[in-house]
């Protein structure tokens, strides 16, 4: 069968629901820099700009701001809007006009996130990349997270190393840490979660089509806030599907993060 034709006709896949759920993280942000880490968040950010959030600023993943909409995994054709070496990225982050979506290995109930080590920091069982910019990002500007495998190993009662700061740790550290902290949403292969609760504990905001609340609970290693009626994550529109399938991810890179299964 003709791949392109069949693809544009078929139902949205779980990966595509995830793309849109990531895109939605930037809704309402206006003219700020969207910094997605990972493939599905990158597709999501480009989709958001191509549709409902046209003023977003996006980088090529190196040192340039670029306009337009282009495929993931390919060089940006431009036009170039600006130069943003790492020095400028840190200034940008600490100045606050940015919303990052990072991909932690662990996250906990109040949104502490770990990209540094698994196990004891002094002698980790697995050394990861290091805290990178996560401490500074989280206390300075809006942050969302993407975890392509929602499982108890990742959704833990307490992260091994607080890299991205959560609401409880920021509160303990004082007003300077809490002042600009905004954890917007956590998107996974199963659900969308947020911190829209009185004590900023993680809440199940929506389940993806085909996923039950019980399935999310079973794969979460701490107690989630769950309302009486958990809505379903919204489906991609036909226009969004067309953009994802023909423009932003024509080669299906999204399926390397979330396997191909119909949502």
């Amino acid at each position, binding site marked *: 069968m003709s791949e392109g034709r069949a693809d544009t006709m078929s139902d949205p896949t779980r990966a595509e629901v995830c793309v849109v759920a990531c895109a939605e993280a930037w809704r309402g942000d206006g003219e700020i820099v969207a910094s997605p880490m990972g493939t599905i968040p990158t597709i999501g950010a480009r989709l958001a700009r191509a549709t409902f959030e046209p003023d977003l600023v996006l980088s090529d993943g*190196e040192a340039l701001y670029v306009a337009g909409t282009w495929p993931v995994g390919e060089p940006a054709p431009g036009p170039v809007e600006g130069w943003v070496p790492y020095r400028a990225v840190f200034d940008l982050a*600490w100045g606050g006009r940015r919303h990052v979506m990072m991909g932690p290995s662990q996250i906990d109930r109040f949104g502490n996130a770990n990209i540094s*080590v698994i196990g004891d920091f002094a002698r980790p069982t697995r050394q990861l990349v290091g805290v*990178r910019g996560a*401490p500074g990002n*989280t*206390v300075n500007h809006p942050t969302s997270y993407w975890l392509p495998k929602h499982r108890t190993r990742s959704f833990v009662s307490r992260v091994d190393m607080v890299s*991205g700061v959560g609401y409880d740790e920021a509160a*303990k550290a004082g007003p300077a840490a809490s002042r600009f*902290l905004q954890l917007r949403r956590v998107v996974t292969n199963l659900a969308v979660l947020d911190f829209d609760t009185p004590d900023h504990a993680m809440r199940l905001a929506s389940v993806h089509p085909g996923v039950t609340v019980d399935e999310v609970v079973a794969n979460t290693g701490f107690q989630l806030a769950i309302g009486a009626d958990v809505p379903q994550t919204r489906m991609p529109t036909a226009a969004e599907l067309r953009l994802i399938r023909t423009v932003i991810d024509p080669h299906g890179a999204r399926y390397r993060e979330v396997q191909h299964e119909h949502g």
Partner: protein
Amino acid sequence: MTEDAVVAQLRSGMTVGIGGWGSRRKPMSLVRAILRSELRDLTVVSYGGPDVGLLCAAGKVKRLVYGFVSLDSIPLEPHFQAARQSGSIEVTEYDEGMLQWALYAASLRLPFLPTRAGLGSDVMRVNPGLRTVLSPYDDGEELLAVPALPLDAALIHLNRADVTGNAQFLGPDLYFDDLFATAAARVYASCERIVPTADLAAVGGIGSLRIHRWMVDGVVAAPNGAHFTSCVPDYDRDEEFQRAYVHAAKDAGAWREFVATYLDGTEADYQQAVASRPERAAAI
């Protein structure tokens, strides 16, 4: 200067900053010269890539100061992981921006610079020496005071330089090479090519001239000196070589062979071995 002449000016126990970023524009020929030397117990400061991995694997590192260590196209650095997981090095893990602040404070001869970055994170827990500072103004905010991190020496690699030490980056990012330079007592810059001073501005424009001769104590002509990291526009990262590096790092025997093939000899031997690699691959 030669790489070995630079290393002859370094001492065991020194704090050495290494420019570049991840697996990008690293002064690898200078790092390889350290591998060949008797130096040990170094405190290495780096936005880390294979520079860190190689120095860890060779047992040169006492303490590592970093925000991350990564090979970019391969997220995790195997030798750094092994060093951490075996507990063979001491570490100071900072937020990336904290590391910038530490170098900037040293550059400005300030004891510290304030920031929010690090507050509330376990960076504070695992670095118990970090202190906060209360704003003296009406806001009264309590901020993290990142202590200055003066370097005994900095090693950086640029695309071009003149003989006096004015050096030029021609790629998209200087990274923090200028801060490594101004934070250091002694600065050694290797470069792809030494050119007449007049060629610098003519080729890259004035914006590319950010490393100045007053910062630099020695210049090394090191063509392909950043290999296997990227040094655009002169060359991209040697992804195939990097994959071979990572593959070899996973096995003691394979690593010994890698060292024997590439690292036991001089820099010229290294470059020769790299250049003849396609032939060897074809012969096998």
